[in-house]
């Protein structure tokens, strides 16, 4: 990794403060206003500009904007291509299809960071803490006894829970260390047109993307070293993530020196880079299903020194594929007998079995009620208004207003199984109307939310607005909750698009959470003489 980073570091010193001639007659932001109108972004909240018309930045973006303008287009473009080469060389890629075709792509990173000032982050943090506490209490209730309190009290309809695809009734009463069900959570937040933060989705199963948070930060420190240098202690670090995760995982075992492993589907999985990265950063074994076996309800891995007992599995495989004895019998990714070991408490899983019932897109509608029920408070971060075809009145509204709504299937993710009403054809809407009537349990609808826009560099045109969301990562251990400041800002790179998922042409940004309300300007770079000396 250090090789290319070193090369970039040198070029940074060599080129950084040379004013680019082009920058005087070509401004990178020249097209911003035009694209805002053309792409239909005018109604959205812009993260960088208070007023797009005059390109007046919000206070916390001013230092960054100045820095980008100082660099100029040529230099900025050069850094973009260096960054892409670095990611490719480091193999920070996802597999598009098999290696035979050699198709691996880098997950596009936009080099302009997204900045969140301290007070906004404090609000987000409070909201997430409240929400994850409530969802965990909900899961505890559901999997603790045959007759959960929340169902007795009719807060969430019993039928909805029992028909949820990811509800695992067979696992009620299994031992759950520290009563923590969701050790790793990635909640998707968006910002509406009025600038308010909303929760779009809870990801309580195996959320991915955190490796990009860590790698993006590393990359950005090479791209904007001066900005970082003059803002030491103002930009909150993110690199304690793996340390914290490892400590939490180890705490799931009662044995003094537990063996913790990360279970991956293998090198052809699109998130394999992340699995390898996390295992490496934590110094734990990266295992595949075939490396493990269960004997007498204890899990072992096959090592060069014979079988070694496994105590904790950070699994990056969905419930359905974990154990062919219990779930899909054809799955070759899992481990036969793993669920027996789990039910006996001989191995801990992170996250536990069945957490998906709480991030079901239909259950989502009830999360504000769930928060009120367990926490006795109103939700700090509101939901996006949601209509469920389950409820008769809401279904009628959905069917009558399909052209203004986004419709989602309850159990799909990654941007699949979606209808974006305003952008859909008449035929597509008709097809979804039929599906909704045929299977009301499975659909929900939300009004189109104008996701906020943030500046992104687009090869050939300059810096343009694009829609973004934010996925913070929340770790829960016996000592409580840790939220990594920031998270993954995902970008819908296609003009006009709302879809930020990497599988559908999305990219990402580094997210800077500040300890203050603004950044200081970049430090003046040393003159070349100083560097040589």
């Amino acid at each position, binding site marked *: *990794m*250090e090789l290319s980073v070193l090369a970039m570091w040198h070029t940074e010193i060599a080129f950084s403060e040379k004013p680019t001639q082009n920058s005087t007659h070509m401004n990178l932001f020249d097209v911003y206003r035009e694209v805002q109108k053309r792409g239909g972004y005018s109604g959205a909240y812009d993260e960088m500009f208070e007023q797009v018309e005059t390109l007046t930045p919000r206070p916390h973006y001013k230092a960054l904007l100045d820095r980008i303008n100082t660099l100029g287009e040529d230099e900025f473009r050069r850094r973009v291509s260096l960054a892409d080469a670095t990611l490719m*060389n480091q*193999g920070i890629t996802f597999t598009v299809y098999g290696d035979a075709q*050699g198709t691996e792509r880098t997950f596009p990173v936009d080099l302009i960071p997204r900045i969140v000032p301290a007070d906004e982050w404090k609000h987000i943090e409070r909201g997430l803490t409240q929400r994850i506490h409530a969802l965990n209490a909900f899961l505890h209730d559901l999997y603790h006894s045959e007759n959960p309190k929340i169902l007795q009290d009719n807060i969430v309809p019993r039928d909805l829970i029992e028909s949820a695809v990811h509800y695992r009734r067979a696992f009620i009463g299994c031992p759950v260390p520290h009563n923590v069900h969701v050790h790793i959570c990635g909640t998707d937040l968006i910002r509406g047109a009025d600038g308010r933060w909303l929760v779009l989705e809870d990801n309580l199963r195996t959320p991915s993307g955190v490796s990009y948070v860590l790698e993006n930060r590393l990359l950005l420190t090479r791209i904007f070293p001066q900005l970082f240098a003059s803002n030491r202690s103002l930009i909150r670090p993110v690199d304690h993530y793996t340390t914290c995760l490892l400590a939490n995982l180890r705490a799931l075992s009662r044995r003094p020196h537990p063996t913790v492993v990360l279970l991956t589907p293998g090198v052809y999985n699109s998130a*394999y880079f992340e699995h390898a990265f996390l*295992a490496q950063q934590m110094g734990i074994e990266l295992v595949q299903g*075939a490396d493990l076996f269960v004997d007498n309800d204890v899990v072992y891995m*096959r090592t060069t020194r014979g079988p070694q007992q496994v105590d904790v599995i950070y699994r990056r495989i969905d419930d359905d594929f974990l154990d062919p004895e219990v779930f899909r019998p054809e799955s070759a990714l899992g481990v036969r007998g793993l669920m027996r070991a789990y039910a006996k408490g001989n191995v801990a899983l992170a996250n536990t079995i069945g957490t998906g019932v709480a991030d079901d897109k239909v259950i989502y509608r009830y999360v504000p009620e769930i928060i009120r029920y367990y926490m006795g408070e109103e939700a700090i971060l509101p939901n996006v208004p949601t209509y469920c075809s389950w409820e008769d009145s809401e279904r009628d509204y959905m069917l009558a207003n399909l052209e203004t709504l986004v419709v989602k299937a309850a159990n799909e993710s990654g941007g699949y199984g979606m209808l974006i009403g305003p952008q859909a054809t008449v035929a597509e809407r008709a097809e979804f109307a039929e599906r909704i009537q045929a299977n009301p349990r499975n659909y929900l609808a939300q009004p189109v939310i104008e996701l906020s826009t943030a500046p992104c560099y687009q090869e050939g045109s300059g810096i343009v607005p694009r829609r973004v969301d934010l996925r913070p990562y929340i770790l829960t251990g016996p000592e409580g909750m840790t939220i990594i400041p920031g998270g993954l800002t995902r970008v819908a790179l296609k003009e006009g698009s709302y879809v930020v998922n990497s599988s559908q042409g999305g990219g990402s940004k580094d997210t800077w959470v500040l300890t203050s309300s603004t950044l200081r300007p970049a430090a003046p770079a040393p003159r070349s003489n100083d560097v040589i000396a």
Partner: protein
Amino acid sequence: MLSREADALFWMGRYLERAEATARLVDVQYHAALESPQEGTAETNLLMRDAHTLWQSILEISGDELIFRARYGDIHEPDLIRFMVFDPDHPNSVVSCIRAARRNAQHVREIISSEMWETVNRAYLELTLNWDVEKMLATSPHTFLLDIRNRCHLFYGLAERTMLIGDAYHFVKTGIFLERADQVSRLTDVLVRGLTGGDYVLDEGEHMDTHGWIACLKSASAFEAFRKMYRGGITPDHVLSFLILDWDYPSSVHHAVSQVERCLRNISGSTGRRYENNAERLAGRLHSDLSFLTVADLHEAGLHLFLEQIQERCWEIGDAITARYLKR
């Protein structure tokens, strides 16, 4: 360490060493062929060596002559270079070895250092995807081959510099050295056969093909070190002794086998004369043979037979390692 990962580390080492050995061999012979006399001239008959014989030798070292003949027919230099270096369908071509090394590295990227991973990954990306093969065959493959060697060397250096000295490190090195012992013995065998016209009778004095023996040493990156060791000049016996039996030269078969044994012992922790498993026993026995033999013993055993046995014994060691450590 997981058996699957030990297996990937071992084969990553083997494939890189194989890529390097093949690249070096083709490069040296390519340049030797440029200087060699035309076929059928008086000079050729005297020296028993021409470009065609050289390429024939290379094909024999690889052990893939049948595959080549089936695909390309007669030996022509550009075809041979394509086959040995660029052919993605030939499993032992340089690019195939780099691809295989990278595939193995992918399975253990959390175990090897980031620097090592990036070196293999870049070798794969930059050397196996982005070259204009036709252009290179029309000019010279030298830059490409040199680049392969440099990247392999960088990888070995990074392994020493950045890897924790533990089982993973020893499995990588076991792979590298076992492959080296095998490659150097093949190289010696086939080059000696070429240089002696197939009868393994070594000419000393005025009929000796000094140029050929130099190429032989260079193919193993051994020429300069050889000069330092043998000030008196080049004789076939000195070359054989150096490539096969030398104690101090890192590419001699002897040294490579001694390293295999040492790495295996480091993995199991066995000391003294005791061995913990069959792989150690076989490696130790071969090491001991090579320690106490002289060139005269090689001649007595029959040079060709002896070298062939070394290759067989290397395979046995590999099988024993697999049985003990790598099988799931």
